[in-house]
């Protein structure tokens, strides 16, 4: 069994984890094009090499970030998302109005 080091719970069997997709910067939803938004929501790079991904430890409901080599499947580092996401993202009213009107 492969072992994933969870930042909260320590080493656990990989079967306790769920992959959550690549970590990427969110474009500004009020100014970006539909194409850019679709890129963000639906498409993945699938690159060969080291990628930064979301993972969920299902037993504790804990989301964290892992750096993983997609060729060797080696897990290089795992860490709490607060290292990257340290402030709340607010969505303006303008965004809501645009979505409702669309």
């Amino acid at each position: 069994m492969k072992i994933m080091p969870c930042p909260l719970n320590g080493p656990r069997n990989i079967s306790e984890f769920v992959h959550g997709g690549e970590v990427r910067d969110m474009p500004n939803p009020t100014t970006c094009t539909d194409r850019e938004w679709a890129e963000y929501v639906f498409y993945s790079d699938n690159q060969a090499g080291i990628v930064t991904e979301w993972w969920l430890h299902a037993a504790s409901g804990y989301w964290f970030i892992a750096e993983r080599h997609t060729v060797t499947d080696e897990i290089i580092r795992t860490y709490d998302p607060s290292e990257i996401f340290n402030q709340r993202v607010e969505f303006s009213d303008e965004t809501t109005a645009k979505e409702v009107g669309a």
Partner: protein
Amino acid sequence: MSATSPESLSKRSFVYRQLAGASFRDIAGGAMATGVAEGNNNRSQAEQSALLDLSVLPRTGFRGLTAAAHLQAAGLPIPARPNQASVTGSGELVLRLSQKEFWLLGALSDSGAGVDALNQRGLPAADCYSLYCQDSHAWLALTGAHLPATLAKVCGVDLREASFPLGSIAQTSVARVNVVIVHHQLAGVPCFSILCDSAAAEYLWESLLDAMGEFGGEVIGSNALL
């Protein structure tokens, strides 16, 4: 006066069907098995290997930036790090499941009165909300001298004393079901409290009994520990 039975009360344990024939008493509006029909029901069984259903005992949870302050204001001991548990003077368990998530498990000795007292307090104005772990999770207590050996059959985490001392919590998979395991003592007997999703309770109950078989494990009622 008719005897208390799970069917006579609206709040039931998730494994009450497995406890058919037991004698019950009313705890916080639910039926807790005090003695099972065909079992030893004594302390020596609990000290050897036993399974006890505590699902009707009150418990509650809080999550958010101010959750720790909320519990502290109620005079509860806050574990220093996630995945640690502390015990209050009256026997409640305070579980710290992450930086911002806490559960309070009621004490058998006072039928969970401490949890009711905490629930009477108003929540902080912001950044703290309740978790309904009373309804979402079953609470099974595995007791006795063979705890790590029993769980080694169904769980991949090392739960021996050296790496999982008293007061530790492991959030992991047992028999493929996500659980929270708490290492503590119940009336002086070594105990792993296992909190699992309510929908998986009957399956986990049978799985644990199967794993306990080789250690002479049996179901007990709460009177074995009082």
